């Protein structure tokens, strides 16, 4: 009898390990299709609203923190690299490099979430949150623009967040629907997309981190022998997809208004 038929890794309903690995990969790919369709709903909605409200989307996007998005992109792409190297280590039966690459991937993913948490904190602090907080901040800025004298204006500027002041100044003297008017409601619409899309992506990252943590535990307990490398590969497929989604989210959310900075 062959090594593959005797392998403890081989499930009884497969002829051989290669067939088993193919089935595992296919199962994960079927799941990834549902993920792609799930995110495509968000992307289609975003495309439509950006088409109709380009100025509002560009304005809101220009107030997101681009350096964090750029850094997070580097972290995620690097984590995909280390994940791919982890598969290689698993295929070659190298336990220590496998664990090291998985830990590195985990650290990079956790770093992504750390910067994301800092970004959320900053956004909340700057009141870039759709709803009552946004409306109040904008109303304060409009009130100030309309009534404050030059002397009090300088003092007040220190208490109003930058985006609200800029939006109020931009819209001063313009009517709703007039050319050049940036609708605060549509700015909030962009922020809804920003929060929902990045939060859903963040949840996927957390799920991926959980899976990678589990892989580390399995590898440490010698439960990922060479012939069972597809366990690592299946998790890596998910991780790469999450990385891929970010490669689209980043330009759509953070670069929509990059050319507007400092206008």
């Amino acid at each position, binding site marked *: 009898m062959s090594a593959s038929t005797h392998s403890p890794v081989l499930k009884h309903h497969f002829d051989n390990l290669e067939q088993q690995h193919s089935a595992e990969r*296919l199962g994960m790919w079927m799941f990834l299709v549902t993920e792609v369709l799930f995110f495509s709903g968000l992307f289609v909605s975003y495309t439509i609203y950006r088409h109709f409200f380009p100025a509002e989307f560009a304005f809101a996007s220009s107030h997101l923190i681009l350096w964090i998005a750029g850094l997070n992109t580097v972290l995620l792409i690097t984590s995909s690299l280390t994940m791919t190297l982890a*598969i290689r280590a698993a295929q070659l039966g190298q336990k220590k490099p496998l664990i090291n690459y998985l830990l590195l991937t985990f650290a990079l993913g956790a770093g992504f979430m750390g910067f994301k948490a800092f970004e959320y904190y900053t956004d909340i602090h700057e009141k870039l949150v759709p709803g009552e907080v946004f409306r109040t901040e904008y109303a304060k800025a409009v009130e100030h623009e309309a009534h404050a004298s030059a002397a009090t204006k300088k003092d007040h500027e220190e208490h109003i967040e930058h985006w609200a002041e800029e939006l109020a100044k931009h819209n001063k003297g313009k009517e709703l629907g007039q050319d050049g008017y940036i609708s605060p409601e549509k700015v909030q619409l962009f922020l809804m997309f920003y929060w929902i899309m990045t939060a859903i992506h963040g949840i996927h990252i957390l799920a991926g981190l959980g899976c990678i943590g589990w892989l580390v535990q399995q590898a440490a307990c010698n439960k990922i022998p060479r012939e069972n490398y597809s366990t690592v590969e299946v998790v890596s497929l998910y991780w790469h997809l999450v990385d891929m989604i970010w490669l689209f989210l980043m330009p759509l959310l953070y670069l929509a208004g990059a050319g507007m900075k400092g206008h």
Partner: protein
Amino acid sequence: MDAHDHKIDDPPTMHDVDNPAKVFTVYLVVLGLALANIGLSVAGLGSISLPVQLAIGSVQAFLVAWYWMHLRRKDTVVTLTAVTSLFFVFIFYVLVLSDVLTRQGGGL
């Protein structure tokens, strides 16, 4: 599936172990494209910025899928599954946009 071509006495297949040089090359290209995306956006491409950004994102996604997600192995069913998802996304975009963008009055 490739599994049918695999003899039962064969050891676990290792023909698809990644070449580290190729893995790092893909990394550098994907990273370079990400930086190019940011650079081009800051430069201000106007109305073509969105198509350019999405085109760069698509090239990056293709590289990740082809090399790191191992679509290059030509496992027919897996490739078909991946392509099917793109086909469904295409149908989704075409049907929804053809409705919304052709409405009389041109609004939502």
